[in-house]
């Protein structure tokens, strides 16, 4: 592991509470935080010329990708196109061999590690739902809640009434409130997916990365998730990797197709689906 600078205050976003009451979105999740991160150029994430290779295999090949503030972007592509590797680069799990990754206009993601990036405002949902199975649903969300996350603060931490309310609010929105005291390991697959999304939301991230969020969900759950994400867009930026084209069609106005580690096509879902190269990649040569 290479030397990592300590968390600097400038990495942390200033909490913004606009008094007009417009800070909350339609379903009461998340707060508007546009002023916290320097996004004067309108992009929340800029990946430029990112290359990653594993033992000679180029997982990402000079990838360029920009996500606008408040945008909901879907990423599709065949297996091995580099979707998960791209998320690893953004969240600090994998260092790119070359290229730059900027969060907002000022934060260089290639020089930060996982927890600094998370604190700066990027939340990630894994492909396989990952929650703390031995803890209750409530405790899971409590740990994710945006607060001082140092060792000493955790020793003395007491949950305030406002924080408790916030957790219950999110659990209520995700229909997990009746299960708040159940052990997370006992939840169904779909419920775990929602719990993990809830854990992301209370982190109040600027950018959410969601790796196959509706895998294993019932049709009703998928529909609910689509509504949820549409409600989040605008206040947060979302990047959703998904194979379910029906789901992609129902949420995305903008789709990026990845193939062999770089962008193959970009545009609306109809445009992309009409693109001959995309059809070729998906249906085989």
């Amino acid at each position, binding site marked *: 592991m290479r030397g990592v600078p300590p968390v600097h205050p400038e990495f942390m976003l200033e909490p913004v509470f606009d008094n007009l009451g417009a800070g909350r979105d339609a379903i009461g999740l998340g707060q508007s935080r546009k002023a916290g991160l320097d996004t004067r150029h309108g992009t929340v994430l800029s990946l430029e010329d990112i290359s990653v290779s594993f033992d000679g295999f180029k997982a990402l090949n000079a990838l360029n990708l920009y996500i606008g503030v408040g945008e909901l972007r879907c990423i599709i592509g065949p297996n091995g196109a580099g979707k998960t590797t791209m998320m690893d680069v953004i969240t600090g799990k994998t260092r790119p061999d070359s290229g730059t990754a900027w969060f907002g206009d000022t934060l260089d993601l290639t020089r930060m590690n996982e927890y600094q990036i998370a604190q700066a405002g990027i939340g990630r949902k894994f492909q396989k739902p990952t929650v703390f199975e*031995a803890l209750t649903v409530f405790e899971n969300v409590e*740990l994710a809640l945006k607060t001082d996350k140092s060792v000493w603060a955790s020793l003395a*931490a007491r949950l305030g009434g406002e924080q408790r309310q916030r957790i219950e609010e999110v659990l209520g929105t995700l229909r997990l409130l009746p299960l708040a005291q159940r052990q997370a390991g006992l939840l169904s697959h779909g419920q775990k997916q929602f719990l993990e999304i809830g854990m992301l939301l209370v982190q109040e991230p600027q950018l959410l990365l969601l790796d196959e969020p509706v895998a294993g969900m019932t049709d009703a759950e998928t529909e609910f998730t689509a509504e949820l994400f549409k409600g989040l867009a605008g206040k947060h930026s979302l990047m959703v990797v998904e194979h379910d084209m029906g789901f992609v069609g129902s949420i995305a106005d903008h789709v990026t197709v990845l193939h062999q580690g770089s962008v193959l096509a970009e545009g609306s879902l109809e445009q992309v689906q009409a693109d001959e190269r995309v059809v070729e990649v998906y249906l085989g040569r």
Partner: protein
Amino acid sequence: MNQPLLVTATQKAGPRLTLAIGAIAVLLLVALPLLSLLPADHALQVSAYTLTLVGKILCYAIVALALDLVWGYAGLLSLGHGLFFALGGYAMGMYLMRQAAGDGLPGFMTFLSWSELPWYWAGTEHFAWALCLVVLAPGLLALVFGWFAFRSRIKGVYFSIMTQALTFAGMLLFFRNETGFGGNNGFTSFRTILGFDIAAQGTRAVLFLLTVGLLLASLYLCRCLTRSKFGRLLTAVRDAENRLMFCGYDPRGFKLLVWVLSAVLCGLAGALYVPQVGIINPSEMSPTNSIEAAVWVALGGRGTLIGPLLGAGLVNGMKSWFTVAFPEFWLFFLGALFILVTLYLPKGVVGLLKKRSQP
């Protein structure tokens, strides 16, 4: 050892009885040293042998508690906690050797015809400095080892193997006469502690009471820690460290703190063990000792705090009976016990009792 039966009853009758049983256990432990002060011909007199045996087991129980904190909660299986225990013991032993030697050199140094104390023995004639060493030696070693291990993200079985190697290296180092800790004989023939005769009944009783006090204090501390947000974070480190990092926590700090705390608790237990048992030598660092500590925790029940105390008591109680009754079968029995517990009692004795009480 009829404690498991008591616990069964406890689980059935609820928390009030748990408290009552706990209070009785503590009262018994406090009464034991007082009874040892009775004249030798009194019917209730507790022999020095019994007092030392129970005191020794209490020290082991503290080690089991410390190991449960790192293994049961943070998921770090240490197979080297014997090293921290022995380091605390050696630090106390240095002071006791200086007390026994008076103004001269400790006996083994004269035997090696050394003319002066090695530099690291400086100040060990002062009890206060010896106490500092009891905390600092295991604490600093754990800090340095943990810093590098957690920085390099070593976990699981690799971490266990490294701790095992560490205690083995420590043992080899302390076996050498040149290291200056008495070689394979270690330290023994202590005379006084703070001017009191170490073999006197009164001194033994006080040391025993101190051990009970340390055990209760450690139990209280561990209980507070594991019930706080810090404790839930340790569980999170154990179950899904990646998720925790992406929640914005740096797991290294949490692991390091609990690891060092655990090592210090072991050091304190070792420091109380040495004056009671009267000897410390490198065999305390042997890998089998540390593995045995893991057996206590597994048998009692990981992540329960009270379970490892029961486990240490049960295994050591059986050991002292077995090694007298069937000396050659003890290790086979211990091995079989470990296999049975791993296969059929993944949550240990406490888990079994809990299951019984909730049919």
